[in-house]
């Protein structure tokens, strides 16, 4: 289900104005696509973060601009806690778009009881799908994942109208035997790393003299 964001047009641009906007609880955004002009927008931070954390891709915007949009790119601060900027692309419901979806595991793998460890190697896969049918996320059942078995991207259930963009043989999750890391001998700790080019120089000097 598409979320609804209340947007307002952003006239004052630049770093200081944008910073003021963020301090006031708004997030700067830009809307583009379909050959129309770019529009600079401001959206309440709570609404944006709620939509992003739910994994919603297609949202409706109301207020200054009314349209159906795809969240194309999200910029985060260096600590990954706050959204700095959002790119929105105009889409129609039947338009095919490439989206990256989160893959979640569900169930208990029998391989765990066999002494294995479930490794979730790939957390996101890319699919091409009509904008109106993009799911919030994909889930993979590991109820039949035994020891030394794996599930690939091609085996993940995706909507019937969607096609997989990521390689089909990409391993999403596997159950393997745990690897025990053994500590090496202490004596080796004093060994210095090899210096690139040092040996060649020494040989040259020796040859000249």
């Amino acid at each position, binding site marked *: 289900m598409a979320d609804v964001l209340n947007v307002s047009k952003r006239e004052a641009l630049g770093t200081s104005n944008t910073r003021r906007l963020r301090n006031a609880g708004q997030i700067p955004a830009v809307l583009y696509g379909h050959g129309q002009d770019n529009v600079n927008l401001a959206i309440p931070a709570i609404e944006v973060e709620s939509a992003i*954390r739910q994994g919603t891709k297609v949202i409706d915007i109301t207020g200054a601009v009314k349209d159906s949009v795809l969240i194309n790119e999200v910029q985060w601060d260096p600590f990954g806690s706050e959204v700095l900027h959002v790119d929105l692309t105009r889409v129609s419901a039947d338009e095919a778009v490439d989206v990256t979806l989160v893959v979640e595991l569900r169930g208990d793998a029998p391989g765990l009881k066999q002494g294995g460890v479930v*490794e979730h190697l790939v957390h996101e896969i890319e699919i091409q799908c009509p904008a109106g049918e993009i799911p919030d996320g994909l889930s993979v059942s590991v109820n039949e994942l035994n020891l030394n078995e794996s599930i690939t991207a091609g085996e993940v259930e995706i909507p019937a109208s969607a096609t997989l963009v990521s390689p089909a043989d990409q391993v999403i999750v596997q159950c393997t035997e745990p690897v025990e890391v053994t500590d090496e001998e202490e004596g080796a700790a004093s060994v210095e790393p090899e210096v690139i080019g040092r040996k060649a120089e020494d040989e040259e000097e020796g040859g000249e003299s």
Partner: protein
Amino acid sequence: MALMPKRVKHRKSQRGHIKGNATRGNRVVFGDYALQAMQGGWIKAQTIEAGRIAAQQYIRGEGKLYVRMFPHRSITSTPLETRMGKGKGEPEHWVATVKPGTIMYELSGVTEEQARVCFARLAHKMPVRVRFTRRRPA
């Protein structure tokens, strides 16, 4: 054995300054939960190893731990009771440079509660302020 590079271009490096926040290595990539540095600093190879052991002893093969930092920088020191001069000292240990925001360790295959306890044990070993974080939404 503590981590160190296999090959280096130069044995010794200048001290440098840790400026700004991490713009790379600041996303949770491999696991579900992570320990993130909130301060900049040098983390010794022995400290990285101590953290890894503390975490491994808690998870005991149940989950998988990823170490996201590596000690690339050598730190030199002059021996005690040495007179001034005679050049820069010899490399003594290796450190990883972390900036605020750097993901230091990641954990997968465990519940959030287990990850929190595991990282709390690990955090005691770290010489910088750290926090628990999780994967960023796609």
